[in-house]
């Protein structure tokens, strides 16, 4: 019905719609630049009869871009974790050019032996060679300690990450329920949706996720690999910190909904996010480096071991200057006990500081009288020292499980180990940088779609102002028309 009264109603509905739009616009402007805020719009509909009304609220969002960002955030966070851990591990192995590196220590010991070789009667030179050996053993102990520390920290960080995932899933339940409750109604769900997306972003940094939308805008979250993280309610994510990481074995696995998702036994493995990266550091990278240190220790013990010098050799080979402080047997090639590097020590029989005789280095006999090489007791006996000094350059076999091939000299092995760590570190750095850039790009593209553009808002504000003025003008004109009609009634 087109009448003056309905004209008044239309103008009134126009005013209320403009009012609601201004409220929305001012909110948009106040959140301009906020990363987790998506621009809101009001959908204006025409009610039967013709008046205008807010039919619902829209929120700028691009699900594909969000998915991309979630993926990028997971991989960036994970790669950063790997890079940090490798930087630390690289520092403990050291640059072979530096004095404190493993390779430099091996060089020092070799140099010490060469000096001793030139003057085998000199007790002081023997003692300084022993000191160089002690420094080398300490270096391997310290490396091993650092590697275990890295692994233990990764283990603790995994526990913290799991706790955070559980907290985030708990928060997600609250927000998701609010969204599901409100969807299908005209309520403005923008705040809940913003919160939900920001929780997803945080969650994806901890563990790679896939998001599935269900009816009523309900969201289910699956971890990479398909384990259920959230479906109606959060599933349990459990992890127990590993008690003993010294033995070089893999740590405990993280379970999502009862399924192991990290470690060698993972049924549905996750590959991105902090959690997966920490598990890789703990169970792969650090373990490999530990194995390399253990191999170096094992080869040292073997190189300095003594054989029975009797007519027909009666006894087995025994450890010489370097021993396994736990008293373990002489490590055979391919059977290096895990954690050997942490237990590498100087035989106290040859340690002047412990009252030992450094000349055992020249003469042999750490294993008893039948292991004495210098049978005549000559003070110029050089052969044993020469053999020991050369042993660093002799190609021996290494366990290929350490990742550096099966044969090398100890010297080149230590350099290879350092360059392996460095190469890994550089690779991780590049990966972390490119993943970080990818995340930044994805974030920017999403922000372009969801963010508030002040220019656009201001232009809309001018529009709104005109509409509001026009509606109020119509009201005053209708008022004047009715007034003139009323004047006609006398």
């Amino acid at each position, binding site marked *: 019905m087109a009448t003056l009264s309905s004209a008044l109603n239309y103008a009134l509905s126009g005013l*209320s719609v403009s009012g609601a739009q201004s409220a929305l616009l001012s909110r948009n402007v106040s959140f301009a630049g906020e990363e987790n805020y998506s621009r809101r719009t009001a959908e204006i509909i025409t009610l039967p009869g013709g008046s205008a009304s807010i039919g619902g609220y829209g929120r700028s969002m691009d699900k594909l871009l969000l998915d991309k960002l979630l993926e990028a955030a997971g991989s960036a966070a994970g790669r950063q974790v790997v890079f940090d851990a490798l930087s630390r591990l690289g520092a403990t192995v050291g640059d072979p050019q530096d004095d404190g590196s493993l390779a430099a220590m091996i060089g020092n010991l070799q140099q010490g032996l060469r000096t001793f070789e030139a003057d085998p009667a000199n007790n002081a030179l023997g003692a300084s060679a022993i000191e160089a050996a002690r420094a080398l053993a300490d270096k391997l102990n310290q490396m091993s300690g650092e590697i275990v520390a890295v692994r233990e920290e990764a283990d603790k960080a995994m526990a913290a990450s799991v706790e955070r995932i559980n907290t985030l899933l708990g928060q997600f339940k609250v927000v998701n329920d609010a969204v*599901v409750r409100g969807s299908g109604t005209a309520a403005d769900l923008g705040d809940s949706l913003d919160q939900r997306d920001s929780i997803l972003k945080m969650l994806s940094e901890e563990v790679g996720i896939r998001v599935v939308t*269900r009816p009523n805008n309900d969201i289910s979250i699956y971890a990479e690999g398909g384990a259920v993280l959230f479906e109606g309610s959060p599933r349990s994510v459990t992890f127990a910190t590993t008690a003993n990481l010294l033995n070089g074995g893999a740590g405990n696995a993280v379970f999502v909904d009862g399924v192991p998702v990290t470690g060698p036994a993972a*049924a*549905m493995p996750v590959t991105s996010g902090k959690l997966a990266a920490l598990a890789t550091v703990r169970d792969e990278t650090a373990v490999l480096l530990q194995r390399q240190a253990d191999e170096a220790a094992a080869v040292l013990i073997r190189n300095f071991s003594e054989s029975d010098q009797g007519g027909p050799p009666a006894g087995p080979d025994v450890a010489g200057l370097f021993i396994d402080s736990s008293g373990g047997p002489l490590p055979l090639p391919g059977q290096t006990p895990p954690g050997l590097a942490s237990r590498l020590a100087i035989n106290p029989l040859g340690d002047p500081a412990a009252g030992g005789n450094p000349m055992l280095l020249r003469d042999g006999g750490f294993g008893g009288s039948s292991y004495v090489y210098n049978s005549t007791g000559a003070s110029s006996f050089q052969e044993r020292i020469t053999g020991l000094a050369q042993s660093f350059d002799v190609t021996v076999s290494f366990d290929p499980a350490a990742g550096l091939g099966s044969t090398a000299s100890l010297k080149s092995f230590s350099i290879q180990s350092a360059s392996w760590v460095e190469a890994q570190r550089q690779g991780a750095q590049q990966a972390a940088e490119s993943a970080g850039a990818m995340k930044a790009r994805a974030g920017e593209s999403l922000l372009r779609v969801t963010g508030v553009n002040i220019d656009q808002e201001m232009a809309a504000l001018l529009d709104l102002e005109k509409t509001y003025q026009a509606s109020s003008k119509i009201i005053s004109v209708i008022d004047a028309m009715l007034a003139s009609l009323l004047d006609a*009634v006398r």
Partner: protein
Amino acid sequence: MSLYGIMRTSVSGMNAQANRLSTVAENVANVNTTGYKHGSCEFSTLLLSNCPGDYESGSVMTDVRNHISSQGSILNTASVTDLAVGGDGFFAVSDDDGTPYLTRAGSFVPNGDGDLVNAAGFRLMGYRLDPDQPNITVNGFTNLTPVNFEDLALSAAPSTSGSFLANLPAGATAIAGADLPSLNLAGSQYTAKSSLITYDNLGGEVLLDVYFSKTGDNAWEVAVFSADDAAAGGGFPYASGPVSTAALSFDSVTGGLAVGSASSIDIAIPGGQNFALDLSDMSQLSTSYVVLSAEANGNAPSGAELIDIGRDGLVYATYGNGTRVPVFRIPLAHVTSPDMLTPLAGNVYTASVDSGDVEIGFAQEGQLGSIISGALEQSTVDLASELTSMIDAQRSYTANSKVFQTGSELMDVLVNLKR
């Protein structure tokens, strides 16, 4: 006797204009009454039989018309239970005695009993949807109950159906027969696991663990367990065997389910209903295990937190757990000739002989229109036309009175003929 005729005719004319002024007065008084339909007067002549050469004036009859079928403009409000009809339908309401009426005045608010009542105190009637679909009587008000949100306090629904859509990795290693989850052994292996929340009869959450295990080329086993039975820390062995198992076989060409393969799995939910999980859209392609959708109906016991009313008249209650359930359906009533309905106090109408019988239908069916929540239908009165009618009626009344005056003066002359 034509002079008396003139006076009687003009009196009928004045009465008619008074009637017209009455409708104008009523219209102006109800200019802001929600759902009010304006009235107007139609006049018709009442003539007497006349002999040629002698004219006896007739009179005028008034017929008050209510423009019940006219649509008022619809204006937004903030209340969900403010309802407006955009179309030809009427809300079915009842008074305290239960007598049904029709109305367009939809400003409903819950009263002390929780019934939705409008400004005139009439209760909104609707069909209760749970547990079964309403039994609709087309030509009457039977089975209608007052729409009431109070007794929606707690509601639980057991799960009966759901669907699971995922891709199973075609390249997965087959699980040895002795390690299959269906055997429920400590070392049971599986290719992929998912879990789904369902509800038992009392609305308790039952978490179902669903294991997919490749048994051979294009052949998979689905085994469903109740997660409550899982060993400490989750997983095998469960305290009791699988709740249900099924064998899926896939077409090696399309990657979809092969003809003859199981396409759903029936699960007897412990303490609940038989739950049919639809697997018909599962695929087996050469990619990783990806869940595309997983759904189950049912909801936990929880109070209604939010009410919203759709344009089709379905009243949804949203429960604490986010489940949205239609609880009432508000019907719309219709008669053949709405303008002939008998108006009664309180903006309600009742069917009359002329209007035809009441028929009950639903919004968005035929011409009934839609129910708009959060809006009210304004009065159809237009002040401008009422004011002009008023002026017009005033003039006509004055003209009639002049005729009466003239007749009266002529009578005076006639009476004065005799001294």
